[in-house]
């Protein structure tokens, strides 16, 4: 079954990035237990990285929560789409919700047959979950052993990952404009407002650019 094999290889490739999350979290003064908790329970890369990034930049818990939750919002939108394909109730629906992320949804909706869509969702979701958590632990323990994280490039791992996530989506003109505006806005106010505000306040840019 190539759907299963493809799904699991996506799971392994994406899950391996968990090593960067574990390492970055520990480099930014989170504990190994906190890094693992985030991967087990939050299980959404962008939200996890942003939470750690906001707090390590001196932001409050509230601004980290707001930023992380806004970034997690798209999983809710994926959930709306996946619910129509999976048609689940009770425990299975609760489990499917936890596995609803960029990759499981992306691989699922790339299939043409309904049965393949379901298979792809579960195999990709479980694959990413297992490997993401395993590699988070490895990365977190590894970073504890490293002294100066800048000397290993860890301070640039998370922004580089964000660039990789953003890049393919910026072909659309409106998205590119919003991205550049948000980037410049955040940098221009960072010395004037409390940490975290430059990030959360860009939601206004999303509303203005997306209004029409």
């Amino acid at each position, binding site marked *: 079954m190539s759907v299963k094999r493809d799904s699991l290889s996506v799971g392994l490739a994406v899950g391996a990035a968990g090593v960067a999350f574990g390492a970055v979290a520990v480099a930014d003064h989170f504990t190994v237990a906190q890094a693992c908790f985030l991967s087990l329970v939050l299980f959404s890369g962008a939200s996890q990285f942003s939470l750690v990034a906001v*707090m390590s930049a001196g932001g409050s818990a509230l601004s980290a929560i707001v930023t992380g939750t806004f970034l997690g919002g798209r999983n809710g939108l994926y959930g709306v789409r996946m619910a129509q394909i*999976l048609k689940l109730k009770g425990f299975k629906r609760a489990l499917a919700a936890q596995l609803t992320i960029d990759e499981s949804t992306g691989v699922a909706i790339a299939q043409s047959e309904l049965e393949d869509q379901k298979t792809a969702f579960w195999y990709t979701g479980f694959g990413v979950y297992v490997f993401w958590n395993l590699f988070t632990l490895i990365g977190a323990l590894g970073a504890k052993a490293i002294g100066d994280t800048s000397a290993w490039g860890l301070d640039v791992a998370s922004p580089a990952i*964000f660039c990789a996530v953003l890049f393919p989506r910026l072909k659309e003109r409106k998205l590119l404009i919003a991205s550049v505006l948000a980037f410049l806005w955040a940098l221009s106010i960072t010395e004037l407002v409390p940490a975290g505000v430059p990030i959360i306040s860009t939601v206004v840019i999303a509303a203005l650019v997306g209004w029409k």
Partner: protein
Amino acid sequence: MNSQWIAVIVTSLLCYALKFIGHAIPEIWLAHPRVQRITNLIPIVLLSSLVAMQAFTVKTKFVVDHRLAGIAVALIALKAKLPFPAVVVGAMATSAIVYRLKI
């Protein structure tokens, strides 16, 4: 309980709630084109501002340093359509080399 644990637990629970709500609500609620455009843009602006903060500030102060080299290599690698791991490892290696040369 310290503020880090509070952020970790509350964000985890809220993000799970969002995932679950998505599976439980009728799609019609999000069907308005304006709502769709804005929700589509929110991750873009948040991630873009995070790149700005993480690559060009130190404790809220604007700083250009070794990280610029790493981000530049990431963008070149993305433009060249290199695979995801090559983009991230290339950026990290470049940033680390520039950082070490300065010392």
